[in-house]
């Protein structure tokens, strides 16, 4: 195996793969990506609901989400040479009670302040957009420029393009530690003892990022949360919108394939002590039933849809609910892109581009200063 690279990226998820891709576009030739598990996109990249959403975003992340939608998603399939199934038909965040509507209004106001166009609509207007929604739906926020894509294919589309472009990938390459040389983060030590050296080291390893940067004395206050998802058999085309609810009891969409993908929380087990972030065979027996009841409650017509598979994944939740991007001041040579709180898929292309810009020394297209590592420690 190669022992040195201009840039070493730790984490072969959609963020790591996208960073590698945009680095090649910026002319960086010698890039190495290390994936700890045996499969690219083993973590959250392939376990999410596929939302490409700007609405409901924290103001610090909203510009990145908007850049992703305006500059990257519309042309991504063409660029990567594979259909990533990007569909831009809007996001409905549904409410059933007055309390829900209040919550939706607050989210809508916050997004409008950030320049995002989004409407509050009535229950009847919701049913005009999608007649399958329950009569109980009182209203929704509707963001027409939101949408969804296929996270499984999008992640691998970046990866396969990277391979074509000569990026060096290693799977089963679990990182044990980082090491500084003359004050600069340079060495990446693998579990099997292999020592690698990079001009720049990017950590985009989901929740495992915390363990990895701890080896050089850095820490991000974050915790893993386990969420679950399910997929149904193919159904005739019913509605193309991305869905979420004010109750946060499920989210998801109908895929191009025809199946419905829905995610939901998993009760007490959400807080299970995750011993190995690469082993995601954790699922609460009550989750599937609770998800089904939630989905049926909003979309009664789906009671007859057949579930074929369910799975779980880990969300890397930071203390303040948004990701960590950029160069920590106290670790020269290190770049962070982690802590996406379960909503990193939609922003991944823009994040990949911004991190590539950071590495080659360009001014990033969005201000990432509010997402800096130091924010947790400033008084």
């Amino acid at each position, binding site marked *: *195996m190669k022992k040195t690279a201009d840039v070493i990226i730790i984490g072969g998820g959609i963020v790591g793969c996208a960073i590698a891709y945009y680095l090649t576009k910026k002319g960086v030739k010698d890039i190495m990506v290390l994936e700890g598990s*045996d*499969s*690219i*996109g*083993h973590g959250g990249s*392939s376990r999410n609901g596929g939302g490409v959403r700007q609405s409901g975003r924290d103001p610090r992340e909203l510009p990145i989400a908007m850049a992703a939608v305006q500059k990257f998603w519309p042309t991504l399939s063409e660029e990567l040479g594979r259909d990533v199934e990007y569909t831009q038909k809007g996001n409905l965040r549904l409410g059933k009670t007055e309390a829900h509507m209040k919550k939706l209004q607050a989210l809508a106001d916050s997004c409008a302040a950030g320049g995002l166009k989004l409407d509050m609509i009535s229950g009847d207007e919701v049913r005009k957009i999608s007649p399958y929604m329950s009569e109980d739906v009182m209203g929704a926020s509707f963001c027409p420029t939101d949408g969804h894509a296929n996270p*499984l*294919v999008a*992640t*691998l589309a970046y*990866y*396969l393009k990277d*391979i074509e472009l000569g990026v*060096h*990938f*290693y*799977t*089963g*390459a679990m990182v044990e530690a980082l090491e500084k040389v003359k004050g600069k983060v340079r060495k990446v030590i*693998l579990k*099997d003892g*292999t020592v690698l050296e990079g001009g720049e080291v990017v950590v985009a390893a989901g929740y495992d990022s915390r363990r990895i940067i701890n080896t050089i004395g850095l820490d991000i206050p974050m915790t893993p949360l386990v969420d679950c998802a399910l997929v*149904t*058999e193919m159904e005739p085309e019913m509605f193309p919108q991305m869905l979420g609810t004010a109750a946060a*009891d499920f989210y998801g969409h109908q895929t191009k*394939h025809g199946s419905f993908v829905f995610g939901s*929380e*998993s*009760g*007490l*087990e959400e807080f299970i002590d995750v011993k190995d972030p690469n082993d995601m*065979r954790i*699922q*609460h*027996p*009550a*989750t*599937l*039933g*609770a*998800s*089904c*009841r*939630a*989905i*049926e409650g909003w979309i009664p017509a*789906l*009671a*007859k*849809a*057949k*579930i*074929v*598979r*369910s*799975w779980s994944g880990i969300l890397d939740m930071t203390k303040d609910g948004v990701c960590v991007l950029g160069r920590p001041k106290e670790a020269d040579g290190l770049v962070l892109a982690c802590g996406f709180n379960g909503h990193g898929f939609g922003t991944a292309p823009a994040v990949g581009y911004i991190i590539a810009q950071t590495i080659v020394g360009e001014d990033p297209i969005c201000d990432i200063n509010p997402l800096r590592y130091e924010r947790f420690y400033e008084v």
Partner: protein
Amino acid sequence: MLDIEEKLKEIGPYVPEDDDDLLVCRCEEVTKGEIRQALHSGITTIEELRRLLRCGMGLCQGQTCGTLTRRLVAKELHIKPNDVVLATARTPMRPVDMGVGGNDRGLEEDAVKGGLR
């Protein structure tokens, strides 16, 4: 650890075979040729294959094509069939109506306690 570049060099480029149009996954209509091409472009696990091509992701969840796919992966990637990691088995194993899945009232009390609803 797997060096993807080295593996691709070792197995060589994709060369079409006469029966590449053979359907391996009948549920999702994935052909042998599609699987072989994916393996020669950088896909190295059944997990990745499923995500890229949907083989084994349909109604039968790979019960028909699982063995075939495993043998194809072993042959194309020059590895022992025993070393090919199988796809993770996923609940509910047989398609279940959402209405039935949501009707597990016995667990309802636990779910409420657990904060699920």
